[in-house]
């Protein structure tokens, strides 16, 4: 992720030490200066995100990374950055919570990431990588989408993905789209009228209403344009597992095992968590008889699955918080216990 950021032209990083993501700032502390960028170890998470606010306003591709408790602290700054429509990339290598929790992997910050987290009506583009290569690729894309939409992008990873080692192809960076010129950044007002980057709208009285309308319009556009999802063996599946990130990847193992046993099981793994890829779930609700949500949290992601599938099929749940993770064999066992009942959809199990 850190190397992808450098290759994507990130020239400013500020962060504060927290496990399990210390490898990122440690790497960037030497790599960024080598690439002509700036690394600052901030005095706090709050300062780090505000440094990003400044560096992004000054035109640099900017990034910060942290883990759950630290990301909570950053929420103030994230709200300002979203409100001021500045691009940046924020990585959350999630760990167990609430509170100090533990340093095992978790997906407990889903709501915080996709529903807001800080104050006010704003949205982050949220990405949920499941593989090291995907983390690398998405990090590059994150910088593009941030610039393209002038919006903060969060990479919602977890402590397992943050710590595993996998072969990685260090592909070169090429922008996905022609990026718009940064005609809003602060460079000193030589030869032009001064610019102001702000989130305060006192005048006129409905100025903030208009600003919010504008933001919402942008969010609708992003929802319309951006959607990434892996669908695996869903075409003929009776049971569809919905899971993202690490639990999505583990669920894929369960699907393979189930298929070898002749069970018609498929997987939908959203990669963009906001915008949430609704269409595959709408389709799944027509073809499958049941869904199973697997998440490393206590019932957050399932809400979006239910909304996207409009509760058209029963959705069962397998998840726990606090640093727990599922094994593919556990998921398989649950899938085996779920009786498909296509003719009369019902939520009861035949035990």
């Amino acid at each position: 992720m850190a190397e992808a950021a450098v290759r994507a032209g990130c020239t400013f990083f500020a962060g504060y030490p927290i496990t399990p993501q210390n490898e990122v700032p440690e790497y960037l502390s030497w790599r960024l200066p080598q690439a002509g960028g700036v690394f600052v170890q901030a005095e706090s998470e709050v300062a780090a995100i505000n440094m990003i606010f400044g560096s992004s306003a000054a035109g640099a591709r900017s990034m910060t990374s942290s883990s759950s408790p630290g990301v909570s602290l950053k929420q103030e700054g994230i709200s300002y950055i979203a409100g001021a429509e500045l691009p940046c990339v924020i990585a959350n290598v999630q760990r167990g919570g609430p509170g100090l929790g533990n340093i095992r992997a978790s997906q407990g910050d889903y709501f915080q990431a996709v529903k807001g987290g800080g104050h006010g009506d704003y949205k982050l583009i949220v990405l949920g990588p499941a593989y090291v290569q995907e983390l690398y690729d998405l990090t590059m894309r994150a910088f593009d989408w941030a610039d393209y939409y002038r919006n903060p992008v969060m990479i919602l990873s977890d402590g397992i993905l943050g710590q595993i080692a996998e072969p990685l192809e260090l592909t070169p960076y090429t922008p996905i789209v022609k990026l718009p010129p940064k005609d809003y950044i602060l460079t000193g007002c030589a030869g032009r009228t001064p610019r102001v980057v702000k989130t305060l709208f006192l005048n006129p009285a409905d100025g903030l209403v208009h600003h919010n309308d504008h933001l919402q319009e942008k969010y609708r556009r992003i929802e319309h344009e951006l959607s990434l999802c892996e669908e695996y063996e869903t075409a003929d599946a009776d049971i569809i597992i919905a899971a993202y990130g690490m639990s999505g990847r583990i669920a894929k193992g369960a699907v393979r095992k189930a298929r070898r046993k002749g069970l018609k099981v498929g997987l939908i793994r959203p990669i963009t968590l906001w915008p949430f890829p609704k269409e595959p779930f709408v389709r799944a609700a027509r073809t499958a008889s049941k869904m199973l949500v697997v998440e490393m949290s206590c019932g957050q992601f399932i809400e979006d699955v239910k909304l996207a599938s409009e509760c058209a099929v029963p959705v069962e749940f397998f998840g726990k918080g606090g640093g727990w993770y599922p094994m593919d064999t556990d998921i398989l066992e649950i899938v085996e216990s779920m009786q498909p009942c296509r003719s009369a959809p019902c939520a009861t199990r035949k035990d």
Partner: protein
Amino acid sequence: MATFTRPDTLKDQITHYCPGCGHGIAHRIVAEVIDELGIREKTIGTAPVGCAVLMYDYFNVDMIECAHGRAPAVATGIKRVQPDKIVFTYQGDGDLAAIGTAETIHAANRGENITVIFINNAIYGMTGGQMAPTTICGQPTTTTPDGRGAHGEGGPIRVCELLSNLDGTCYLERTAVSTPKDVLATRRAIKKAFENQIAGKGFSMVEVLSMCPTDWKLSTQKSLEFVNNDLKKVFPLGVYKDR
């Protein structure tokens, strides 16, 4: 013959500040200095949260409005990305010495090459006169009706003294805008604080004792006397660091 005109760095705008407030004087001094040094087109200012939050409407330079107390962190981000620009923060006492204490101390300690204008009027102005970190002992506020210190509030924080211990600071001076002589001294200090940045010398801060007649519930004349007779005793004027 010289005429008294508006500096280029100030827009033709009527400010929202109360009669007798020191912000107008401080704004004008900063603007004059920016004009004089010829740096308007390469200056980036950061606005605080507090009475000066709308200063981006008054200053004719690129500006960013920051979250409460975070201006030194934001300024760090800007200056590190564009080291050839002149970056300043303009902060009140609640912003700089309460909610933003960590950002202030650490930006100073890193020796960020920025200029900090610290307006100390010993009260929270915009929110209606609550106790500030620099409210002096015995001073009544809306949250210390019996005067500061009666109920375990502690004493005022002296920021220049505090920061003078940090190796990263280059220049620290406390001035006032309560007499013509003080205004001239403030102008000299602020000019020096900007010159230091141009010369790449590091963190420079000017703490300006200023008036808040409205929230002190004093007349404009009595407010000047409060600065001269009371605040200056607790916050002695002078240079605390110059290297």
